[in-house]
């Protein structure tokens, strides 16, 4: 299954452009912060003390944001040794089962991501062990908006949130709910993309959710060089 499939509509193209650019920009910023820190330390005996933490957060953001894009473009790795051996009808049936399992996975991750993030944003976790059955009653310890990251200072332009979420107390460091918000956001996107992929498999628009190896795109780009016989 090629990952070069592109959305046709203008909106689809725009969303695609935003997703790809976001992935590129996050990785670019990660690289630059790390590089600048090396230069500052080696050249000027100083450093951005928050740089390390910022880069690890961006790393998490890159992956959490990107996994849904990889579902959309069918870029996730899988094993097609068996599915390639069976007849097309069986392959399609298996793909539908696989899609359902992926949706279940994304739903569980979504619940976990919400539950993990919610208290940091003073919001209620969901009740229920497997699937949400409602919202918890907030207790004293459910309010965790005070919880800050380790090194990244609170930017002044964000201070307007303090009265809204931290009872007006000033943050010394960035509150954790900000970096963690990518978790429920990414999980939601993942769920949406898996549902869409499931629909495409159901309608026969695609017949698998996986690529068999990480270099399919790269191989496609160079395959013409040895194809002449």
């Amino acid at each position, binding site marked *: 299954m090629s990952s070069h499939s592109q959305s046709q509509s203008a909106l689809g193209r725009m969303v695609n452009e935003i997703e*790809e650019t976001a*992935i*590129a920009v996050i*990785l670019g910023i*990660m*690289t*630059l912060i*790390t*590089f600048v*820190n*090396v230069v500052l330390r*080696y050249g000027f005996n100083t450093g951005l003390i928050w740089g390390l933490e910022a*880069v*690890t*957060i961006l*790393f*998490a953001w*890159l*992956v*959490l944001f*990107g*996994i849904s894009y*990889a579902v959309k473009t069918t*870029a*996730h*790795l*899988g*094993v097609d*040794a*068996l*599915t390639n051996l069976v007849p097309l009808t069986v*392959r399609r049936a298996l793909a539908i089962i*696989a899609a359902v*399992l*992926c949706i279940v*996975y994304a739903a*569980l*991750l979504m*619940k*976990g991501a919400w*539950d*993990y993030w919610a208290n940091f944003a003073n919001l209620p976790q969901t009740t229920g*062990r*497997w699937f949400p059955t409602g919202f918890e009653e907030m207790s004293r310890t459910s309010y965790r908006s005070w919880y800050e990251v380790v090194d990244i200072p609170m930017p002044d332009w964000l201070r307007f949130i303090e009265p809204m979420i931290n009872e007006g107390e000033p943050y010394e460091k960035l509150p954790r709910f900000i970096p963690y918000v990518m*978790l429920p956001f990414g*999980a939601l996107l993942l769920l949406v993309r898996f549902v869409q992929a499931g629909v495409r498999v159901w309608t026969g628009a695609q017949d698998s959710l*996986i690529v*068999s*190896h*990480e*270099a399919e*795109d*790269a*191989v*496609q780009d*160079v*395959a013409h*060089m*040895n*194809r002449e016989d």
Partner: protein
Amino acid sequence: MDVVLLFVCIIGLMLIGVPIAVSLGLSSVIFLLVLSDTSLSSVAQSFYQAMAGHYTLLAIPFFILASSFMSTGGVARRIIRVSIALVGHMHGGLAIAGVFACMLFAALSGSSPATVVAIGSIVIAGMRQVGYTKDFAAGVIANAGTLGILIPPSIVMVVYASATDVSVGRMFLAGVIPGLLAGTMLMIAIYIMARVKKLPKGDWLGWGEVFVAGRDALWGLFLIVIILGGIYGGIFTPTEAAAVAAVYAFLIANFVYCDMGPLAGRNGERNTPLWRKPIALVTAFFHRDTRDTLFEAGKLTITLMFIIANAMILKHVLTDEQIPQQIAAVMLDAGFGPIVFLIIVNVILLIGGQFMEPSGLLVIVAPLVFPIAIELGIDPIHLGIIMVVNMEIGMITPPVGLNLFVTSGVAGMPMMSVVRAALPFLAVLFVFLIMVTYIPILSTWLPTTFMGPEIITN
């Protein structure tokens, strides 16, 4: 036993076409929810921390990025030219040059498929032009390409270091001698086959060509000096080395080779030198080529890390259920010595390598076998190299393997032909595996010499 069911579940899901990451994650989550009192929220925490809490793994996106800039920027072509200039005149010269080029590119790139794509796409075509069979060419490249994860830098080594808390710097050093040895063994095997089969030899192009080609490739090859010199010269940590490598590769590709970015000639035009268009120093950062390279590297990072993050959830299950301790106890009670243990590790990895992407497999297997290895007195660095070499072999053993896929794509030939083509050289790598497994000093001598004896603090 529950854990058997867990692994059956994972493999079953993979086989019906569920993405590897989801197979690992979903099976683990179900087991956690059924068997323990762990919440879904802590699963999400593990997932987030797989990236944010593992500083070592940050080297992965950076090395991938450096490799992308190097491939796009025409470094592979220059490396091949210098390799041919050096050894192309020997019997089987172009094939030997192909191995040599794979070794050089492996020293710039952290991954095997990237090495096969970058070098293989050019060398296979070149070998066929001078009269080699396509099968022979593909077999050579599929094997030599596996050196991508043995010769530092190596993404698989980064993952091993992260999973077991050994030093990445040590692992990289440990890979140098085995990497050179494996490359040399492959070249000798080719030379012998070349003499027997009367394979073509190229012309000696003279020292002038060596010099010119070398000078042209020097900018790219200098990256080796930056990575290793920077780490061991005390300028940066391995993770930072990866980021510096990426920035350096960007600068070289855009401003020196000018093969990408604002200075690159489109549609066969010549590249513009920087002095004629200095504004490129600014525009290169926003150029479409830069964005695309960053994006491609980002996408590969995302798919690898999705697997690794889910493997971390599985690791959480194994830890929570104290599986490594149980297995360790069983093995130690059974009186297994280091030799039997290492054979078991080899077998597990060779089988696991059929299904799993190497990094994900390592995240799962390393915590299982590491405590036992320490108990048995096996050096953790040595164990790491053994695991890496197993991964290499897994990539080219039938029925499936990463490098087999990639080579079949690059060479435009069916999988089974690649499998057959790779077999003779595979024998060489098996001999190499036995050597690496039972001669620890091959792996440990260099790191011990440079960095002192390995310390085990756990």
